[in-house]
Every structure is written in C-alpha cells, then in structure tokens.
C-alpha cells in the first residue's frame, strides 16, 4: 500500500532528523532535545495508564520524581548508574501497582483525587525527609553514566543515550499495546463491566496499567536525574503531572505517537516562543487552547478522524447505492 510506504518514509526522515539535527545545535538545544526524549517516555507511560486503560492519573510527575530521586540518592551513595536505574524502575513499578488499588474501588474524578493526593504526598516527602532526600536543598554531585567504555558525559553523547532509551521504551510500548494486552487495556477504558464478564481480569489489568505506566515514569525520572545533574523537589510538583497530562491529551490520548507530539509541544514549543519574552507563556497557552479547539481529540485524533471519515464516506456511498438499487428490485 502506498500509504504505508509513505508512512515508512516519513518515519525514516523523522528518525534521521532526531539523529542528525542535534549535531547542529548548541548545548542548550541539545539539552532541550534530551528533555523532550525523557518527557516523551514519561508521557508514554501516562498514555498507557490514561489513554489506553482509561485510568485518570495525576501522579505521573511523582513517579518521574521517584525515579529521579532513586537514581540521585543511590548514585551519590556510590552505586554507579545501572543498578539505580533498574531499582528506579522496580520501585516505581511496585508503587504504581499499589496506587492501582484505589483504582479498583473508585474511578474518574475520585481516582484523579486519590492520585493527586499521592502526588502531593510524594512532593512533601521529597521536601521534608531531609535525611534521605536532602530536602529543599536538593542532591548534587552525581555524574552522567558510561557504558561499555563509552561515556555519556558530553551533552550530545547524553542526548544519544536518551534517544536510545526512548527507542527502547517505544519498542516496548509498541509491542505491549499491539499485544492482546493492549486490547484488554482498551476494554478496561471502554466498558469494564462487559470486559469482566468476558473473562478479562480487570483487576490485574488495572494494576498492570498503573504499574507499567508508572515504571515508564520512573524510567524517565532515572534519565532526568543525570541530565540535570541536580535533583530537588520543585520540578516534581503537581504541575509536572498536569503538564504530562496535557502532553498526552494534546498529542492524542490513546494513540501511540501522541506522546511524541505532545511532548514536543510541551517541551519544545515554549522554547521556540522565548523570543516573545514575558509573553511567551501567554502565547503558548493561547496556542494550546486554539490547538485543542481545532483538534479536540488531539493532533493524532484528528488525523485518525480524517482517515475514518474517508472510509465512512465510502461506506455511505455504498449504502446509498444499495438503497437506490432497492427501488429497481
């Protein structure tokens, strides 16, 4: 099919751009690109929990924080990078699993509330438990990792490192949502009661959706710490969770590539708007509002609607033809 060929070509161009364009950027540009890759991973996790499985979570930012703190604390304690990374993923997976339990009892806005409270609590723990987190002063003094003799110290090196991580996370995600699990997650979102009566173990899938989504957040956080090389509580407030939520929705919730676009808008767009000085956030907010008014189902939602509309037109024409045929019969 020519469309799929076109898509493949487009994909290759994008991948090539992600690899080569940063070579032309200054350090700051590279930093922003790295941040984009990391936020995409975090948003991808939320997209699983929210977009696919329909479980509203306002705690994804907290999981990014948990991942970042795990890595920062362990690295300053001298554990290298890889063990803390694995541990960050395990911890956020486990905590995400636990956070899934309330979701078995309450839904929608109540769930939003529970996750919001969790997010608040996590922030306060980061800030108040100085013995562990150094409190408001934050943790410094850990370095970016190296692997197989390759150091990821320089910005561009670290960028490729995060890009690799993004590729890995995307591959995992693609595989997951295209497996029967992906369908079960959607079933959870669409009609949990019917799903249950079809043998879908909604409890386990709900917990899984939370745990895997959170672990993706933790993974993102584990990369965020060495990117910034300093961790303090302020980035991990509710604002980050809301920002990630925005990325998911604006990109197109429940679409695989939604988080990529959403994170581009959430991370890159404000930077491009910096020329507007004090007005840049105003312009940014206006842009997001206009975008959502034009594409309420997210950017990819609109693309899909367009494709669906074309299919529907064909079906509609067929129905009209059949209907006209009836008169002659």
């Amino acid at each position, binding site marked *: 099919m020519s469309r799929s060929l076109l898509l493949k070509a487009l994909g290759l161009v994008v991948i090539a751009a992600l690899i080569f364009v940063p070579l032309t950027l200054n350090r700051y540009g590279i930093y922003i690109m790295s941040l984009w890759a990391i936020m995409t991973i975090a948003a991808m996790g939320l997209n699983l929990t929210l977009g696919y499985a329909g479980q509203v979570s306002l705690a994804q930012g907290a999981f990014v924080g948990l991942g970042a703190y795990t890595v920062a604390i362990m690295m300053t304690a001298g554990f290298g990078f890889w063990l803390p990374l694995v541990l960050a993923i395990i911890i956020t997976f486990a905590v995400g699993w636990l956070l899934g339990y309330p979701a078995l009892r309450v839904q929608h806005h109540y769930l939003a509330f529970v996750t919001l409270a969790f997010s608040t609590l996590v922030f306060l723990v980061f800030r108040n438990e100085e013995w562990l987190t150094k409190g408001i002063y934050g943790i410094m003094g850990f370095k970016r990792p190296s692997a197989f003799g390759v150091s990821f110290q320089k910005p561009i090196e670290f960028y490729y490192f995060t890009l690799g991580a993004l590729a890995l996370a995307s591959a995992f995600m693609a595989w997951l949502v295209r497996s029967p699990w992906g369908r079960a997650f959607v079933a959870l979102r669409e009609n949990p009661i019917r799903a249950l009566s079809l043998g879908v173990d909604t409890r386990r899938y709900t917990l899984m959706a939370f745990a895997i989504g959170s672990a993706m957040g933790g993974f993102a956080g584990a990369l965020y710490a060495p990117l910034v090389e300093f961790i303090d509580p302020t980035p991990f407030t509710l604002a980050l969770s809301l920002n990630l939520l925005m990325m998911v929705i604006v990109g197109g919730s429940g679409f695989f590539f939604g988080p990529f676009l959403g994170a581009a808008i959430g991370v890159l767009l404000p930077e491009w708007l910096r020329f507007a000085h004090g007005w840049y956030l105003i312009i940014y907010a206006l842009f997001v509002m206009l975008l959502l008014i034009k594409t309420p189902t997210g950017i990819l939602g609109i693309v899909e609607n367009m494709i669906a509309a074309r299919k529907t037109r064909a079906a509609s024409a067929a129905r009209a033809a059949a209907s006209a045929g*009836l008169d002659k019969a």
Partner: protein
Amino acid sequence: MTQPVLSVRDIVAGYGEMTILNGTTFDVMPGTITTVIGPNGAGKSTVFKTIFGMLKARTGSIHFKGTDITNAPPRKLLALGLCYVPQGRNIFPELNVLSNLELGGIAASADVNIPQRIEAVLERFPVLRRKGQQQAGTLSGGEQKLLEIARSLLLDPQLMLIDEPSIGLSPMMVQEVFSIIKELRAKGVSVLMIEQNARSALEISDDGLVLELGRTRMQDRAQTLLNDPRVGQLFLGGVIEEKSA
C-alpha cells in the same frame, strides 16, 4: 381526502460523514396507528430522531399538520403536540421515579395540571407508584421502559412517536401498552411506532411501513402488509430457509 398529520419528504440524514437516510418519504394519517418495520440498521430510529429534531436533516422536509417542522428543536415540537419515546434508556437515572415523572411535564404550559396527570398515570401503572421513591436507575429494564412511556403520556400529544415500546416488557405489559396506544387513537391521537414485535404491532395498526436501507420500501394498510408473503418472508421471520451452518 384528509391531510396527513405528518408528512416526511425525501429526508437525507445521517451521522457525521455517514448518510443513513437516503430520501425517506412517508405520511401518517390523522387518528391512525402506523407501524414501521424493517431489518436492524435500516434507519428506523434514525428517522424518528430526525423528525424530533435530535438529528439534523440535510435535505428534505417534514411537515406536521401543515407546519414545516424540519430541524425544529424538541421544545417547539412538544409545544406543537409531538411526543417521542426513543429506543434505549432515556431517564434521569439518579433521580427517583416521581421526580422523573415530574420532569416529564417540565415543558408543559402552565395551565396543564401536571400533578393530576401524574396521578392518572400512576393509576395506570401501579408498579411505578410502588417504586415512586426508588432511584430510577435501579429499576429493572422493563420498569425503566414503562417509566418512559408513562412520562410521555403526561403531555397531550397529537402525534406520538414510539420506538420499539415492547422491548423488555412482559407480555402483559405489552398488551397494556398496546391498549393504551389504541385508546390514544380512539381520542384522535396519531401514533407512529417502530416494532420488531411486528405481527402483534401490525395487528393493531391501521397502516404499515417497511423501511430498508434508509428508504421507504413499502407503505400500505397494515393488514395488507401482514398478508403479503414477501413481507412475511423478508421481515417477519416467516418461512425462511437458511442454509444452516
């Protein structure tokens, strides 16, 4: 010749890009019961939604007693004496049964004595009186349908649109509803009804209408349709010989 109370002409309507009705045309005569039958997905419910202004007609016209009501809002139609009981569940599930009934009269003009009418309906459907304080969403499927039908009787319609009233009703309740419909006709009210329970429905009807693929396939006296072997075979589950799997 009498004027039709409702006349639907060349209606084209649908959902988004999908056109479901491809020029539907039919009439309903005053003081008659007209039953619409047709396969699932023919567009029967879509016609009703379009008549009642819940769906936009792209082209075509709908006239009620000579007035053009194409794409008029439900509020206006209710005021003119149209009434509509849709398919599926259309109640306020969180309110109790009595409040649901009261809200049924919300658009009635001030001179209508709604409490009195509610009393009359409750007389007719004692189940609803018994469950008056129960949250409507917890009623059984059939009871919810009854509530909806009861609610529509609060206003004085001159034309009732009823979409498959018999779904979920016990045989006794179906008889009850059909006899109410007959009483309405006796009072001069016209009824346009969709029924899959087509034999019983056609038996009490004056006219019948077969809809297929969004078009009026046949319109005739109900009795004629009932006896038409083609109708029986295609739509009434008559003597069909399917190649069994």
